[in-house]
């Protein structure tokens, strides 16, 4: 037993031909966030603090679909959502429909700690943010040129894009710098366990490109995108609608609890059996300090580390598979 941490930046049809200039900054971000998380665990911070910290870092990074860098709704607006859960107490917090809050995950945490509720959304959530004095900025802060392009592409193709979709261009090898139908961003999330077996999970996103205004995905839904109890902590990514109906995060824990599966087995089962191919990825840690990162998509931006020195940063399946 020892601490363990895993984080993701989204699962989807990430083309193996992904251009270096798009891949490198994202890998660097994963590396940086992993380090932040590992250092925090080494400094004995609680897993709840650690997951919030790591997700904040990912939210602040414009290359990932959360906080700054969030994808746009069909009206070109920002609507961010997030949730956080503490495995010990099963306390949780969730927010949706945020437009000005710099770190949605932190607002979710405040909902959990400062209100008798679990989930606040839209105007009510924004108002709460102001009451709490959490950092807010003009909505334009979150919008990146890449995402404006993505929305344009999606509208032209008249599609709602999941985290990662195949490029519109027939020639997959040719990657134009910005105009690419492939929404190469994803939800972000982090799970952590300390050496005492305390678990926590956090997930944050800007949602789907070209989504309807007011559309809520799996990310703020406890049991779908996020879940933690005293057995494990799970954060999922992919097609929100599929993750919701598959109650993905909860099911990993349920399989461990009711069917006695190991963390790895449970995660594999869920991504292989409970959700259609190409739709989901997840990271999970167990109370015993195990870690697993499973997905049924082409790839998933991910990173993990355990106390015994193992660490990994990857996008596609590792060669030894």
């Amino acid at each position: 037993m020892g601490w363990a941490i895993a984080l993701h930046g989204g699962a989807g049809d990430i083309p193996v031909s992904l251009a270096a200039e798009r891949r490198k900054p994202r890998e660097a971000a994963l590396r940086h966030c992993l380090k932040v998380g590992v250092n925090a665990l080494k400094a004995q911070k609680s897993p709840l603090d650690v997951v919030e910290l790591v997700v904040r870092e990912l939210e602040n990074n414009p290359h990932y679909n959360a906080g700054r860098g969030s994808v746009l709704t069909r009206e070109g607006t920002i609507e961010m959502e997030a949730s956080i859960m503490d495995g010990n107490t099963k306390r949780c917090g969730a927010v949706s429909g945020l437009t000005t809050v710099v770190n949605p995950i932190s607002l979710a945490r405040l909902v959990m700690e400062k209100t008798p509720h679990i989930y606040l959304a839209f105007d009510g959530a924004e108002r709460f943010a102001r009451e709490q004095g959490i950092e807010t900025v003009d909505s334009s802060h979150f919008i990146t040129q890449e995402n404006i392009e993505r929305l344009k592409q999606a509208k032209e193709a008249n599609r709602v894009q999941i985290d990662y979709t195949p490029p519109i261009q027939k020639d997959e090898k040719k990657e134009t710098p910005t105009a690419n139908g492939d929404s190469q961003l994803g939800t972000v999330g982090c799970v952590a366990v300390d050496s005492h077996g305390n678990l926590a999970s956090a997930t944050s996103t800007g949602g789907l490109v070209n989504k309807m205004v007011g559309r809520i995905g799996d990310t703020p839904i406890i049991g779908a995108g996020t879940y933690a109890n005293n057995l494990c902590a799970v954060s999922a990514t992919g097609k929100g609608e599929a993750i919701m109906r598959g109650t993905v995060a909860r099911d990993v824990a349920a399989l461990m609890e009711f069917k006695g599966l190991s963390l790895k087995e449970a995660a594999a089962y869920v991504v292989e059996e409970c959700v259609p191919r190409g739709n989901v990825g997840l990271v999970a840690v167990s109370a015993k300090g195990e870690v697993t990162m499973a997905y049924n998509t082409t790839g998933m931006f991910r990173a993990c580390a355990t106390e015994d020195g193992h660490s990994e940063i990857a996008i596609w399946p590792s060669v030894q598979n």
Partner: protein
Amino acid sequence: MGGWAIAVHGGAGVDPNLPPHRQEEAKKLLTRCLNLGISALRSNHSAIDVVEQVVSELETDPLFNSGRGSALAANGTVEMEASIMDGNGRRCGAVSGLTTVKNPVSLARLVMDKSPHSYLAFSGAEDFARQQNEYFITEENVGMLKLAKEANTIVFDYRIPAVGSDTCSAVAESPFQMNGLPISVYAPETVGCVVVDSQGRCAAATSTGGLMNKMNGRIGDSPLIGAGTYACNLCGVSCTGEGEAIIRGTLAREVAAVMEYKGLGLQEAVDFVIKERLDEGFAGLIAVSNKGDVACGFNTTGMFRGCATEDGFME
């Protein structure tokens, strides 16, 4: 075994101070809606159609806290939410933050059937409603006023008038608490319906106006798939009670999960979940299984409910 079954609820956490005539009205309404569902089932309607129809009927009557009778949020507006799930394929639809839509459960169904998404909220949901069908929208001003008046009427009929203010006397008169709020806040409640049709397909739907005086923008368990509502090929579940307890316990999914992964029967699963998954929370639920069983469980003082099965059982 086999055959259809249906159960309805009008909320858990019944205020013991609820006057008898209110209890009678509640029973009458539940019976009427139950009968509606039974006729539909006898006419071979699918489970998903039946749950929508029944919950829609419950929403239309101002007695329970959903649709027309919805509780008022802190700023005086109504915020309704609902979800529906078709066990056959596990498709689902949910809505939150509705203020003018007449039947939230029907809008949830439209989200499921007619949109690329599963969950729409607030202005986005209202816009979608407008696009779908004019019928949905009540005359905004008239509707709202009517809702407010009716909700107010219900409030002052039997609720401790001190909701939101003078907590001392509220506590003195009604020591029962749920989730830190006086129980009067919770009555009347969420409504729900679960059905298994003669082909063994399960469905579930839940609808609510939420807590009295809740923070605006607060979303409870009713629209959350896995928490307030869940249906798969094994069963259909609808919950009511402390939203927060239901969410953290992923209650509706839990019933299905113990059946699926532990092989428990319906009643066993329901009992297990109520006993083991609620910790200090209070809630109740109704469930049906694909085999035609019906079950309910609650750890609150009471739960308005009714159920019936094809073989003649009725309660």
